[in-house]
């Protein structure tokens, strides 16, 4: 079945959505004013890392809302509807993403970033790997392509949802989504994105609570409802619908490798001190556990109400229409928009910082003046937003799989080179480059089914193995990394400047 919305409900939904978007624009413009006051020589630092002064709530939500995108709010519940509870079990793997990201690399990156003045995720690779061109250029291309396509998928999902819930056109939805992101991210920089994320996180949490308790009240006693889903198709409530090998690889991609996600790991560059970092773990874990369990699970429970949805990604919107009064359904839509925009905002910062810092400033024009760099920063971010908007006008198909594809590509490229670079002295630029490109290439070959090398698991598993072997192997057969770099990244004292 498809869902229908009566006019009165439409009006309430549009009103709630417009109100939410207006609040976002105010935040964006306010952040733009703050950025306008920033002195030009500090502009790039303020734009990308906000002077490393972010507090616990911001960091917690930047990781949580940054990683929880349309995947958690639309695609995830949709897959719970179509594939069943076995996927909801796999989704639990994302519960501790804040703990994983910050616990695995948070403090080490925090110290090193202050030493080398890192302004982007890729900066970490560039400095650790001796400004190797393969690492830098390969990294920039991977980030632009994969995060770019991920962002497009997010916009498409958001605009489609807007279309079906308001009855207005897809294009209008796309424009509304893009303008908010453009103003917040391109004009407000990381300040805009981090201020917006707090409001987005609150709206997302409100939406999740409303949907969860609304659904439970509507469904009534759980046992008969779940039994009825099992009678529909036993596969929907058994973990064995996916074999253990496949289930485990889902845990690896959605849980274990989150530091390979640039938009999540970049937050290790932003936090103020370790107290804020620890609080960000605790807060973030609570947010994500609530969102995951309450929302993705409800996608499965929608089966008890509507056994035959045509578009599975509509599981949450249709649930909102059914169990909530219109104005609350409007908040649910705003919650989805918040999930999408928070992710997209963080990603656009990553894409822009990679291009400006790690392609333009590192290789094209190292001696760029502060004024010019400021212009390049804003222009790059605006152009990124516009290109993504154009790509989203003619949308690609199948949201969740595209998300899985881009996450896997990035994780395959970055996970081992980042982790080993941080904790194993012997890793050098040759190993780093081989691990990145080898992991990425393997992923494309395996996930695209060009080579039958997945052995019944997700392509991520074989790609991570290849990347690990290459990073370690190539490092060992080539010379040690430069001494100065190792002192920066491991030493108690380190060279502050290099005399020519």
């Amino acid at each position, binding site marked *: 079945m498809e869902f229908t919305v009566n006019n009165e409900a439409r009006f309430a939904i549009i009103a709630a959505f417009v109100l939410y978007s207006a609040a976002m624009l105010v935040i964006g413009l306010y952040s733009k004013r703050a950025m306008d006051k920033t002195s030009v020589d500090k502009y790039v630092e303020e734009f990308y890392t906000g002077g490393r002064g972010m507090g616990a709530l911001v960091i917690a939500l930047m990781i949580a809302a940054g990683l929880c995108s349309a995947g958690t709010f639309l695609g995830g519940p949709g897959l719970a509807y179509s594939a069943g*509870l076995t996927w*909801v*079990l796999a989704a*639990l793997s994302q*519960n*501790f993403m804040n*703990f994983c990201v910050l*616990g*695995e690399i948070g*403090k*080490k990156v*925090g*110290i090193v970033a*202050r030493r080398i003045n890192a302004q982007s995720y890729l900066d970490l690779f560039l400095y650790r790997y001796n400004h190797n061109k393969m690492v830098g250029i390969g990294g920039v291309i991977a980030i632009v392509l994969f995060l770019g396509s991920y962002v497009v998928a997010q916009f498409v999902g958001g605009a489609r949802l807007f279309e079906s819930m308001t009855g207005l056109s897809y294009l209008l939805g796309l424009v509304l989504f893009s303008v908010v992101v453009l103003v917040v991210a391109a004009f407000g920089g990381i300040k805009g994105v981090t201020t917006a994320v707090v409001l987005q996180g609150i709206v997302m949490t409100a939406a999740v609570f409303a949907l969860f308790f609304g659904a439970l009240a509507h469904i009534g*006693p*759980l*046992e008969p409802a*779940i039994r009825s889903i*099992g009678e529909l198709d*036993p596969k929907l*409530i*058994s*973990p*064995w619908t996916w074999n*253990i090998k496949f*289930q*485990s690889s889902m*845990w690896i991609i959605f*849980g*274990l490798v989150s530091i390979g996600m640039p938009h999540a790991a970049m937050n290790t560059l932003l936090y103020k*001190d*370790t*107290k804020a970092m*620890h609080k960000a*773990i*605790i807060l973030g*874990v609570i947010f994500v*556990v609530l969102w995951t*369990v309450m929302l993705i699970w409800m996608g499965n429970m929608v089966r008890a109400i509507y056994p035959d949805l045509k578009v599975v990604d509509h599981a949450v919107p249709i649930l909102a229409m059914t169990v909530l009064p219109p104005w609350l359904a409007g908040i649910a839509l705003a919650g989805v928009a918040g999930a999408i925009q928070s992710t997209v905002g963080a990603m656009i910062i990553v894409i822009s910082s990679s291009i400006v810092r790690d392609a333009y400033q590192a290789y094209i024009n190292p001696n760029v003046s502060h004024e010019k760099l400021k212009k390049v920063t804003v222009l790059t971010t605006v152009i990124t937003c516009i290109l993504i908007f154009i790509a989203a006008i003619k949308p690609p198909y199948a949201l969740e799989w595209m998300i899985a594809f881009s996450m896997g590509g990035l994780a395959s490229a970055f996970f081992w080179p980042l982790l080993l670079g941080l*904790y194993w*002295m012997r890793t050098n630029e040759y190993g780093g480059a081989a691990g990145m490109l080898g992991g990425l290439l393997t992923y494309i070959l395996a996930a695209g089914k060009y080579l039958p090398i997945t052995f019944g698991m997700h392509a991520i598993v074989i790609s991570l193995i290849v990347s690990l072997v290459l990073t370690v192997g190539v490092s060992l057969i080539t*010379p*040690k*990394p*430069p*001494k*100065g*770099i*190792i*002192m920066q990244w*491991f*030493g*108690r*004292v*380190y*060279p502050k*400047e*290099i*005399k*020519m």
Partner: protein
Amino acid sequence: MNKEEFYDRNYSFDDIEVDPRFIRCAKEMKITFLVWILFAVISIGVSYLLGRGDVQDYTYVAGLPLWWFMAILISLLFTALVIFITKFVFQDMDLTDEGSLNK
């Protein structure tokens, strides 16, 4: 340090005095991986063990199939564990250039 020394590749790692903060970081990294892997293994193991057999014969607890009830419970228990570790095992430290381990 001059350029030649900085880019020297013939040296011993033992010559570099490792910052005690980084040793601590490595330890916390290992703890994090260990906890997450335990969480994954226990969640998957318990769910697949309890979720065997015909779904019509499932035991229900609090309205949920036992395996799913346990999966949620394990997530909640690990939430408590993660909070405990963050509060009492992870250490505060100075993040400045050559700061000290004990803040």
